[in-house]
């Protein structure tokens, strides 16, 4: 099923012209998209029968979504409807009928999106090869990741020594899991206040692998991200297996407060589950953010800067325009420790700017708030990726970049910490008492080490410590940030975090799961 952006643009234009002719329609927006998510899910186990590549699969959809503002004798109503698998005028009519049937009077609706004055800066950035992946290629990329890990395991003298022979290493319980995912997204949008029909086409390929030497409770991660098929290698599998081998011999650490260097995955996880939701306009509207009333005020260490940038060339989450037809771009969220802006779509920005409680919620007047509420993040991301025609825009991050004012190398940061922990992968990070409270908890599941006398001296045994802390405390106790950032993925997240490593003082850890030591 290949539908070109030209076909999508034609469908959007045709539907929009039809909507303009309807006497009861005041404003309208047509969003047409075609998405495919091709995914090879990997499951190799040396000690349990397995398939290696467990699920070579895909999910595809295309269709048209219409948002329309209807004139009524009382006041305007707004409705949304969609129709799958039909880009003809008939499909548009069906979507419109649903929008009309469901239209409601929303007192907080002000208008459909209007140009912000910012120019579009990103176009023609996708890889055509990723738009035409054959079934065989889909399977091959999965096996490429698996064999990268298996080659690394086979070549490991450490594993052979532990097992007694190369032939016996399978008894160590080697696991390779994860996936390689290819996303193909094409959209076209026409809207009352926008200039003509706009199109956007994006592709990406990403691999996320976890490897284990399970008999030694050793886990490692590897991932690769990119926008081009010919750039995809076995890197994720090789890194995951290498890191699992490095994790052998893990030790427990005692409960207490530690200086912790959070690796890239934990930085991405903390942002995804705590910081980004706290920086979203709707969290301010509903009074559920720990940053309530703090726009323009310090919320983090002055060395921390966090921004979202959807128009960064070559970055994995980049898009040319939002799913509202507005240009993507850079939105500063935290700048030198000060809360600087929010992730928002058009609707959320407008209703917050018109909210009588704006000053209480954001901490500034409307004039100052407007620059912090630029609608650069109105996306219609479906679960598992894709820009879905059948949902209205939400506010989602794209590429989130984390930077330090005094960036150091990883070795310098470890040396500066001197005694503490390096935490490379965390899991199940939730705001355990609600987002406003900021309390969070998670467990340390791999890629982690003890720092002693300025060096990584031993791995931390996976699944033996739980972090119990508060995100506002963590943000204000940053002791250092490394210079190099890498595109980092978190399970089920929309955005890609270009994350460095960040040192934080006084992080509270609780030792857990002592009973596991004598279990088997």
């Amino acid at each position, binding site marked *: 099923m290949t539908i070109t952006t030209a076909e999508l643009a034609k469908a959007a234009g045709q539907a929009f012209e039809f909507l303009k002719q309807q006497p009861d329609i005041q404003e309208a927006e047509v969003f047409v998209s075609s998405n495919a998510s091709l995914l090879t899910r990997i499951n190799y186990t040396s000690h349990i029968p*397995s398939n290696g590549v467990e699920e070579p699969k895909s999910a595809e959809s295309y269709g048209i979504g219409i948002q329309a503002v209807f004139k009524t004798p009382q006041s305007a109503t707004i409705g949304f409807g969609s129709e799958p698998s039909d880009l003809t005028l008939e499909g548009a009519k069906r979507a419109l009928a649903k929008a009309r049937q469901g239209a409601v009077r929303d007192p907080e609706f002000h208008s459909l999106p209007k140009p912000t004055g910012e120019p579009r800066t990103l176009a023609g950035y996708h890889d055509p090869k990723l738009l035409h992946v054959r079934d065989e290629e*889909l399977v091959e990329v999965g096996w490429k990741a698996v064999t990268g890990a298996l080659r690394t395991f086979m070549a490991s003298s450490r594993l052979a020594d532990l097992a007694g022979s190369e032939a016996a290493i399978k008894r160590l319980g080697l696991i390779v899991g994860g996936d390689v995912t290819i996303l193909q997204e094409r959209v076209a949008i026409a809207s009352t206040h926008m200039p003509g029909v706009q199109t956007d086409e994006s592709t990406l390929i990403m691999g996320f692998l976890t490897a*284990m030497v399970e008999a030694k409770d050793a886990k490692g991660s590897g991932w690769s991200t990119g926008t081009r098929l010919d750039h995809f290698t076995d890197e994720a599998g090789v890194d995951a297996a290498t890191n699992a081998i490095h994790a052998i011999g893990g030790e427990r650490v005692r409960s207490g407060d530690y200086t912790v260097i959070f690796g890239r995955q934990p930085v991405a996880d903390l942002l995804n589950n705590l910081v980004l939701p706290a920086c979203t306009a709707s969290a301010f509207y509903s009074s559920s953010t720990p940053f309530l009333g703090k726009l323009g005020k310090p919320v983090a260490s002055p060395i921390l800067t966090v921004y979202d940038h959807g128009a960064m060339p070559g970055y994995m989450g980049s898009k040319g325009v939002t799913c509202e037809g507005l240009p993507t771009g850079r939105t500063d969220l935290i700048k030198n420790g000060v809360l600087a802006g929010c992730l928002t779509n058009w609707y959320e920005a407008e209703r917050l700017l018109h909210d009588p409680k704006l000053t209480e919620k954001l901490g500034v007047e409307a004039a100052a708030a407007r620059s912090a509420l630029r609608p650069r993040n109105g996306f219609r991301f479906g679960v598992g990726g894709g820009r879905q025609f059948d949902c209205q825009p939400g506010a989602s991050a794209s590429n989130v970049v984390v930077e330090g004012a005094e960036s150091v190398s990883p070795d310098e940061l470890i040396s500066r910490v001197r005694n503490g922990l390096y935490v490379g992968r965390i899991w199940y990070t939730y705001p355990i008492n609600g987002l406003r409270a900021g309390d969070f908890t998670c467990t340390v599941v791999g890629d982690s080490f003890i720092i002693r006398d300025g060096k990584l001296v031993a791995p931390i045994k996976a699944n033996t410590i739980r972090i119990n802390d508060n995100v506002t405390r963590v943000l204000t106790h940053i002791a250092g940030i490394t210079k190099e950032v890498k595109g980092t993925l978190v399970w089920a997240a929309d955005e890609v975090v270009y994350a460095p490593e960040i040192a934080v003082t006084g992080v509270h850890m*609780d030792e857990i*799961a002592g009973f596991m030591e004598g279990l088997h």
Partner: protein
Amino acid sequence: MPSKITTDLIDGIKEMVQTLATAHARSLAHLRYADLRIEVAEGKAATAENGASKFSGEDYGFSFGVRVLAGERMVAPGYFGRSLGAADLAELEKILKDGLKAAYRRAMANGELKATVREKFGSLGDSLMDTRLHPIAVRQEVVPAEYQIDPRNVGLAEMVSYTTDVSKQVAAVHAQLKYNFISTMTQLSRELFASSEGALIDQAFALTQGMCYVVAVADATSQELYDALGHQRGWEILEHGVNEPLIQFPTFIEFARGLAREAVDLANAPALPGTDGEVVVVTDPHYNTLVSHEIIGHPVELDRVLKMETAYAGRSWLLRNLDEHQVGRQVASPLVTAYSDPSLPGYGHYKYDHEGTPAKRVMHIEKGIFKGFMNSRQTAAIFGGDPNGHWKATDSSLVPLIRMSNTVFDRGDRDPREIIGEVEHGYYLVGHRIPSIAESRENFRISARKVYEIRSGQLGQLYRDGGIMADTRDYLMKVDAVGSDFRLYPIPNCGKGQPMQTKKLGNGGPTMRSRARLTGPVVGRLD
């Protein structure tokens, strides 16, 4: 062929789908097995915020998915899924055939590469095996939905009015309620399953849900609470509530107003001080719903147990390898029995899973002894035991995973008032809130909506932002009382899989008593 998508569509395509899954699929040279799943849903939804309507819609869902096991040198799986629309009806047979071919091509390529890797990687290739499915009874059956008010006959305008009114009534509960979001939905869906083995199963489900999210603010404290009232029934459950032996709800308006009152009470309550050591904790059925979900249900999913979720949802502490596991060992107090049962009512009810396996109760813990796992045909073929029917997908276009049906702690024989009354000093946790569970489910921290101090058998001070943290086995082993007040509740949003599938399922339990560390806010450490 009809031009409109309704659940009645299934009647018109059943024969064609069966022929595709049998005669056509079997004509593919190296195909060993195939199944097709088609789902049609007719649903309506409405939302409101702070007393104002925000959205309403009436629409259909239509999708299909294919699984093929095939291969020349080795047998491997391949899948294909797609959403469909009214415009696809005219060419539906061709679309399904093309999907079957794509899944077959993927399985063939997968089988070939599996054989190559198996040859190339010596002993590490030994574990790469042909994909096998455990045999099941092949059935052909039609299973109707159960409801009083047909979701198709509920007027959308009526839903908008009702939902907005609930939101207004919630907002009116107290001035400290700064935000509320209310959603309602009602739908009828029909799932058709056909396999190359000859299965043809047509199941219909009604589902209705009301969801309430509230934020109460008192000074610098916000209490964000949400909860869902839901059942596999019609619109009647929102207007009249549910009064069944295992499921009880008030009307949705009372449900939502109750949650709002609770949020206000909590916003004005002190935060629970955490403890370094264990204390006596009594947990109510709603709290134990999430406990049963997180520390019983998830670790007994056999795909997770066999390491297939290592990169995502994690593994299970209950199995190291096929020779080292907890089956037959004591993992809980003799008072604890837990099982999954698709025959119970509620969100976890169904007769057949998504590979046509007749679903049945599977015992996980019987009087403290671990007994077994939820499984699928593929995992049963690896681990042993009969398939018990827990392979489920959120949508036909997605590949099923092992999911809970109704996973619960069984009832005991104690009066819950006595369980509290016997406590000299302890804490009573009421209602679940937010979980965080260790990777192999060996440790958990779950916050409660409300925590009361118990002194001399009486409930005292109410606390906010509290919960418990414990190692799973230790907590289960220390259970010393189990109540007779068993309840089932809906879990509307369980996430698992890649891409993430969010699924509705059922959990529950009675009042229970054990020991655990109390957790509270980190406020004492903020500076």
